[in-house]
């Protein structure tokens, strides 16, 4: 098994992927991405970087499988309950003053956090004035997200998270349980649009009062974080909100002066002016 990837092999791989398939991983954080490459090689029983390069250059389907495997698609419903509590208490009451509310979930993976947001909006009575744009670079993720399918064994954790976030309803009312999975109530999807958008290469497409991009920045280097924060700034209305993951920061970002913290511990910021 390959244990490490040299700098030059890593650069070569990123270049091959970019030139041949148009996905740009140049400014991803290397420690994590290298690990994903190695993990994928182990999964496919590939024993050398040479073989990996060879297959990337010669097999189109191989890359489709690889991109699915190397991008991180782990997510949870109501991950970090304190964040959702802060949304309920500090952000949604402000959003309620808009006749139409537009929210962007950037890098939504299989949609668990999008549905968490939908539940909050439903409970705040805002869903019918709302449109959630849920995007990811990965088409397979979006397909999964649209199905609203969640494995059953996670639901105990998610119910706990929901209650910790200040939820007072019967959580099981939001889904229908089957043998090994649940399906989120289709009514929660009525104002969600899922579509493909790549933060690395795509542009501003609308204007939002709230952008959630949680635990996506951690896979980017500072250069790419800079680009994406600019993109978010330009996509926010004046005084619009930006929510990041709990350990993500604007500290290393030049755009930080254009934002003010609303809830520093839960990484909720607001565009100044």
């Amino acid at each position: 098994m390959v244990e490490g990837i040299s700098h030059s092999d890593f650069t070569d791989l990123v270049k091959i992927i970019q030139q041949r398939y148009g996905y740009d991983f140049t400014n991803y954080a290397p420690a994590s991405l290298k690990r994903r490459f190695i993990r994928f090689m182990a999964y496919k029983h590939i024993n050398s970087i040479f073989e990996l390069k060879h297959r990337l250059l010669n097999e189109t389907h191989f890359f489709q499988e690889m991109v699915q495997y190397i991008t991180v698609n782990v997510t949870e419903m109501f991950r970090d309950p304190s964040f959702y509590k802060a949304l309920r208490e500090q952000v949604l009451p402000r959003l309620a003053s808009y006749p139409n509310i537009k929210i962007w979930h950037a890098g939504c993976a299989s949609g668990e956090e999008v549905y968490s947001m939908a539940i909050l909006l439903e409970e705040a009575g805002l869903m019918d004035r709302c449109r959630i744009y849920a995007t990811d670079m990965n088409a397979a993720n979006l397909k999964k997200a649209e199905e609203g399918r969640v494995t059953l064994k996670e639901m105990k954790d998610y119910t706990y998270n929901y209650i910790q976030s200040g939820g007072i309803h019967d959580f099981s009312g939001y889904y229908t349980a089957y043998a090994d999975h649940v399906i989120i109530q289709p009514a929660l999807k009525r104002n969600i649009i899922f579509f493909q958008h790549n933060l690395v290469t795509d542009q501003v497409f609308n204007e939002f009062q709230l952008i959630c991009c949680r635990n996506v920045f951690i896979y980017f280097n500072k250069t790419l974080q800079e680009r994406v924060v600019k993109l978010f700034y330009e996509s926010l209305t004046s005084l619009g909100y930006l929510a990041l993951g709990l350990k993500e920061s604007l500290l290393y970002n030049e755009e930080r002066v254009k934002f003010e913290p609303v809830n520093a511990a839960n990484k909720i910021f607001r565009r100044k002016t």
Partner: protein
Amino acid sequence: MTLPPKYRILLIGGSAGSMAVLVTLLNHFPSPFPIPVVIIMHRLKNVVSELDKLLSVQQEIREPEDKEQLLPGKIYLAPQNYHLLIEEDATFSLDYSELVNFSRPAIDLSFASAATVFGAHVLGILLSGANSDGAEGLSRIIAAGGTGIVQEPATAEFDVMPQAAIDANPGVQAMSVEEIIHVINNISTENKS
């Protein structure tokens, strides 16, 4: 006689039964400490945790944010529900990918990541625990020329974790808590000269 290695980073991993030992070690840390310290403990996720504050008795212990620079004398605690990696430029990178050894943070990942970046200048210490996370990581540290120490299994509340590391790599040194304290204190003096 070979000169003792100059460590550039100390990592401590632990799980079930390691808390008391960790506190003892922290209480014996010379201050200021000459290198960065990274602690990886198995922890619950999605609960409000004040572990960083609980451990900050003698000196501040903080959970690093993504892209934060590792600094000498600082003690970092891997945050809940993230893997903690280190980049070539000695900054932290967080990772929210699949559990490894049923754990996130996984000790193996932080240890291996430090071995890649700091090579022979890594000291990894593994304490009590009830699963085998950390064994692979210590092997990677030793393979890169660094030092791997485990708490003597007989003295650990749960011996699975240190024993797994010993079984995985003959280069792992088993030590009593007193001996580990001695090693940590020597780092301090070695780096002063």
